[in-house]
């Protein structure tokens, strides 16, 4: 499967702490995206990083990409209870011309006050 794999599967932290989750994939990509899903809802796009980029920031989010290791990480700094959600990485492979994404199984993050 070309699907990305996320690590850890679950993460429990306290408010104010940082949360880091990782994503690995198997084949060359055009870009890698991170999405958030609140319980029982649809996914919301957070950030996109292209294959020629190494790091990207958006507010309290920091994403890194290492194409040599075929891996990415998402860091949420100074977490809040509202960050409690599942986080998914999604990859757009170079072999695809339709914009299809391959999603990982997700990391479930719980932030306790």
């Amino acid at each position: 499967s070309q699907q990305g794999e996320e690590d850890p599967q679950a993460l429990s932290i306290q408010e104010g702490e940082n949360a880091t989750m990782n994503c690995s994939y198997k084949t060359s990509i055009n870009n890698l995206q991170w999405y958030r899903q609140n319980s029982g809802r649809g996914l919301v796009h957070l950030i996109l990083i292209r294959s020629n980029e190494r790091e990207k920031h958006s507010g309290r989010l920091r994403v890194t990409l290492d194409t040599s290791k075929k891996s990415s990480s998402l860091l949420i700094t100074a977490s809040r209870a509202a960050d409690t959600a599942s986080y998914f990485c999604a990859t757009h492979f170079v072999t695809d011309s339709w914009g299809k994404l391959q999603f990982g199984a997700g990391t479930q993050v719980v932030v306790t006050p």
Partner: protein
Amino acid sequence: DVKVTQSSRYLVKRTGEKVFLECVQDMDHENMFWYRQDPGLGLRLIYFSYDVKMKEKGDIPEGYSVSREKKERFSLILESASTNQTSMYLCASRSSGETQYFGPGTRLLVL
């Protein structure tokens, strides 16, 4: 804001029934997608459409069909629902950019 709506949040059907899941987007997006989401498996692509009346199979099309008669509407059809199709179904749309915009999902229970 892009809005993707799905016809039902929750649906309960009996085995063998024909089930229609509707998805509508209001941003004139070319591409639309249907996924199913199961615990531990993430999202898996069932079908996608890149234009009106055009469709392509995704990774798990068996037991499903789709219809796209109008640009804004993409329907997923379960011809004869089975218990292993109990799942969360997510619709998404995409324009020329890479981001996909998701609907709120339909949780389907097949008894």
